[in-house]
């Protein structure tokens, strides 16, 4: 019985090693549309999420559990070690299949509702998250970034900061700083008023709605929608709507922060079991040989 489990382990691990090693040398599937079918299975973006890959790990986990039950392992410490390892693999399956990830982009000064992002009707997540400021900290050389900080105001809470290595926990979700980009803004001089808006924003003025897109650095022009009617304007130009002359001038760039929202059920357990596994490994190797 002991030999059968060892043989299963060897075969599965060798298949895993071969699959994993080959996949690292292959391009993503978008770069290899004419790859032969056998090779296509090992393309990195296909192999890691493939049923074949998942089943190899599953066979490994199940064989470890069966080995423990049917005395395929000799000592108690070996059994504990293999059970913990099987538990790690099974938790990863559970975590991968249940945990959800979302991305939200918030421009400085703007707000999003967390429940809209995570598609949840739970009152706990019906919160407005406003990006007060995005801060790009630099090292003393003035060139290299030191930290990316999103300073948020969360409805009903104190202001909070999300940065790389410092996520923010809200209920079962964690908010991670993912990326950022700069967004151009434009000023609209309508009558006596000045409205400032970023690309894609909708601003209201006296029951009118103004929205614009088609911002292109190579062919500088805007498509401004005045109550849904498009107007093509140069970056510092004018257009007429409702018998009013509306002047458009470029404004400052603002930051848009991209924040990843991750459901973390099972992950804390996984990390705890991983720590136990390391302790069990020391136990098998040195304390309880």
């Amino acid at each position, binding site marked *: 019985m002991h030999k059968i489990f060892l043989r299963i382990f*060897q075969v599965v691990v060798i298949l895993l090693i071969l699959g994993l090693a080959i996949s690292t040398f292959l391009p993503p599937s978008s770069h290899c549309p004419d790859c032969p079918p056998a090779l296509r299975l090992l393309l990195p973006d296909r192999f890691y999420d493939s049923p074949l890959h998942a089943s190899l790990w599953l066979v490994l986990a199940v064989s470890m559990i069966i080995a423990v039950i049917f005395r395929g392992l000799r000592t108690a410490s070996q059994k504990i070690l293999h059970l913990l390892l099987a538990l790690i693999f099974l938790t990863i399956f559970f975590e991968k299949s249940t945990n959800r990830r979302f991305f939200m982009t918030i421009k400085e000064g703007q707000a999003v509702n967390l429940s809209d992002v995570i598609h949840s009707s739970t009152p706990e997540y019906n919160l407005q998250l406003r990006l007060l400021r995005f801060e790009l900290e630099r090292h003393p050389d003035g060139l290299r970034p030191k930290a990316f900080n999103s300073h948020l105001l969360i409805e009903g809470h104190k202001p909070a900061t999300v940065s790389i290595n410092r996520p923010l926990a809200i209920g079962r979700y964690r908010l991670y700083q993912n990326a950022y980009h700069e967004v151009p803004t434009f000023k609209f001089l309508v009558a006596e008023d000045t409205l400032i808006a970023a690309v894609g924003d909708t601003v209201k003025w006296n029951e009118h709605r103004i929205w614009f897109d088609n911002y292109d650095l190579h062919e500088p022009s805007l498509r401004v929608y005045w109550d849904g009617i498009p107007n093509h304007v140069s970056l510092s130009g004018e257009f007429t709507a409702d018998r009013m002359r509306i002047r458009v001038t470029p404004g400052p760039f603002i930051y848009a922060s991209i924040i990843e929202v991750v459901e973390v059920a099972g992950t804390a357990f996984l990390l705890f079991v991983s720590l136990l596994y390391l302790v069990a490994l020391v136990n098998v190797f040195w304390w309880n040989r």
Partner: protein
Amino acid sequence: MEKIGLYTALILYLIAFVLLITQSRWRSWGIAISLSVLTHMGALVVRSLSANHPPFTNLYETLLLLSLLIALRLLFWQKQIESRYRWLVLLTGIICLGTALLLPAHFSVSRPLMPALNSFWMYIHVPAYFFGYMALILAFLFALIFLGTGKNESAPEIASLLRKLHNEVKIAFLFLNIGLVTGAFWAYFSWGNYWSWDPKEVWALIDVLVLGIYFHLLKPRGTKKVWIVLLAFLCMLFTYFGVSFILSGLHSYA
């Protein structure tokens, strides 16, 4: 200052090496290697202070760390290495230090840490990996000695050599696992994702899987074990150098 310290350490290591191969007593080569380790550590402290981060962040710095770990292992756990093979271990440390010093100048330029690297986990993850690499290098040296000295496993000397090799593989397996788990913790706290199937992560997993086969042999004979150690060493070399130079990914800075 840092380079002066490193070159001084290299010269002292070479003196210790010459004293070792001329069968000198511990007192003479021990003093030389102690002085070289102190100088080496001093240079790394200078490097850390000037760069504002520990010397774990690029190939140059990790080679300096690896050579220091090998020298420390020789200095403090010398009984685990038979006296007639200690020169081989020291020579490996000298090669690592020499390689670091021979790298083109842009490799040794100290750069500020990128935001993701600015984490407490770096202080566990990287040293754990390099301690594991150091143990695997020693296992590899023992494997080479085994292949070079004949394969009579019943001979007491060879049995002792295989026991030492086994001990190093256990250390390597434990520390590579610690590196893997702490790397997953770090990624989770940085990005909310403990595993990204990045080439470096995949090859680090392959290293552990290859060593996993070592512990799951049907007939754990010396020759089989030695060949697995050689394979694990080649995989480790590819994880350390190959992935950084041939493949790109989240660990491209390393």
